[in-house]
């Protein structure tokens, strides 16, 4: 019995909790990509860099607040800087729209052209970030690091295995719940949210109903800015901030959005968790888990790891391929908000 409990704790500690928090970060990222796809109708490859930019501004202001000795006590100072990061990210989105995307939209360019344009925007933002903050790994989480330490848990329960709960994980999960609830409420209940769904559903009819396309696009960028900055900051807070990581994050984020059914916000969220859990479950070494569960005679000697963690991006790619082969429309049929 104790062995069974220990094995469950191992799973919780190494797969479920990290999976939920990584999944939340992917879900928020994928939701941003989905909004751009459903309203502006192109795949925004710059999304990872927009996230990175938001996280960078948040870090800069975190440093500033730290130098002024302003903090939130046990909570990370980054939460105080986050609203400023969000505003800066929204401004970045709107500037890139006004100077770049708007032109192609008015030209009625095909989506693939806009996707290529977004790659250009991605490089520009990436360069700006490197000039401002460099390429080093930055740890900016402060405050109380753990809500529960592994050791505390062991003492508390008397089990062999510890269960650690990082405050960044709890913050990630809480903020994600808050933001997702707000986003879905906004889309379903408010007039502006409904007009965005209408625009995404049938652009011509939305115009005939008097819905102003420029306002819909503007609101979209505001939402995208909020989602991207929060997702980027939470990821950096949980792991660490490094510009190159956000470039790599674009792949699992797009996989999440497509797996869930591109254009469907609910699908994007589900896709985020599917990708996160797959990556973690396939690359986790289950040796400890089986040692607890199996009698010592058939205990595994190897690591019982399906793939090395170096291959975790291959996992998102494989899931993407499998979904596109079996169910090309994604888990939830997409296209419309």
């Amino acid at each position, binding site marked *: 019995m104790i062995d069974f409990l220990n094995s469950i704790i191992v799973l919780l500690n190494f797969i479920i909790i990290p999976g939920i928090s990584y999944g939340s970060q992917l879900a928020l990222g994928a939701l941003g990509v989905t909004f751009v796809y459903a309203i502006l109708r192109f795949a925004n490859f710059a999304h990872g860099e927009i996230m990175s930019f938001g996280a960078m501004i948040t870090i800069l202001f975190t440093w500033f607040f730290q130098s002024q000795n302003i903090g939130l006590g046990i909570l990370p100072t980054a939460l105080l800087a986050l609203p400023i990061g969000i505003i800066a990210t929204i401004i970045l989105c709107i500037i890139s729209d006004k100077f770049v995307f708007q032109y192609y939209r008015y030209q009625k360019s095909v989506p693939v052209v806009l996707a290529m344009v977004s790659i250009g925007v991605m490089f520009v933002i990436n360069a700006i970030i490197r000039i401002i903050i460099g390429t080093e790994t930055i740890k900016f989480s402060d405050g109380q690091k753990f809500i529960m330490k592994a050791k505390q848990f062991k003492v508390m329960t008397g089990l062999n295995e510890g269960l650690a709960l990082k405050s960044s994980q709890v913050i990630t999960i809480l903020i994600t719940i808050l933001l997702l609830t707000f986003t879905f409420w906004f889309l379903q209940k408010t007039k502006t949210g409904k007009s965005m769904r209408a625009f995404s559903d049938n652009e011509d009819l939305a115009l005939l*109903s008097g819905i102003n396309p420029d306002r819909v696009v503007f609101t979209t960028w505001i939402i995208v800015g909020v989602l991207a900055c929060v997702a980027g900051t939470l990821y950096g807070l949980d792991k660490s901030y490094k510009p190159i990581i956000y470039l790599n994050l674009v792949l699992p984020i797009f996989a999440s959005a497509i797996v869930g059914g591109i254009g469907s916000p609910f699908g994007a969220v589900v896709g985020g968790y599917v990708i996160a859990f797959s990556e973690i479950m396939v690359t986790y070494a289950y040796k400890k888990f089986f040692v607890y569960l199996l009698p010592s005679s058939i205990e595994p000697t190897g690591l019982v790891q399906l793939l090395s963690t170096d291959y975790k991006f291959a996992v998102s790619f494989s899931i993407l391929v499998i979904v596109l082969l079996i169910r090309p429309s994604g888990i939830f049929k997409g296209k419309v908000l």
Partner: protein
Amino acid sequence: MNNLIGKNLTAGYGGVDIIKDINLEVNEGEIVVIVGPNGAGKSTAMKALLGMLSLTSGFVEYSNEEISSMLPQNRINLGLAFVPQTNNVFTGMTVEENLEMGGFLRDDDIIHTINDVYDLFPILKEKRNQSAGELSGGQRQQVAFGRALMTQPKILMLDEPTAGVSPIVMDELFSRIIEVRKTGVGILMVEQNAKQALAIADRGYVLVNGKNSREGTGEELLNNPEVRKSFLGG
């Protein structure tokens, strides 16, 4: 008295004029039908009136005011409404949300107008929380119609409102159109079912090859031997 007039309209797509020198007029409280063979430019004429394509020459007047260069959205604001032939509902949204989107531009309380639409199409009230994409063709057409009525238009333009619905539903839709006219709305419609449409029309226009070929009251056109022979099947 509000009226919509198209004078000497010439327009088309990609530099090719589909309608040439067409005159159309619709007044408040009357049903006007445009009939003609396939490819005669009926729908194009209607889109030209709404500003969905730019005019090569001619102009559009609404209540003695020239609106030729106005965007379609702004014409909606003036009191025009349009129901396209296809893709005329928001398929992912509920019936009620479709109606709400129809009244998007209004700042006043739209609940009364929604109830008016439900009175006109009782089936929509039953299906108010169902998504419009799940409805039958005839019900969808009613949603489309209702959405257009939400702006409380003075002139309503319908592009083949009965395309692809059964004869029973068609009769039903036509009787609703007559009811809408009673409230003082002017209706301009393009119809394939020319016979039935002319029967309820106050006036009609026959377009052939993008030109005005004939006009008159519904009855005159119905009884005209030439018109009967060409599009009404004898």
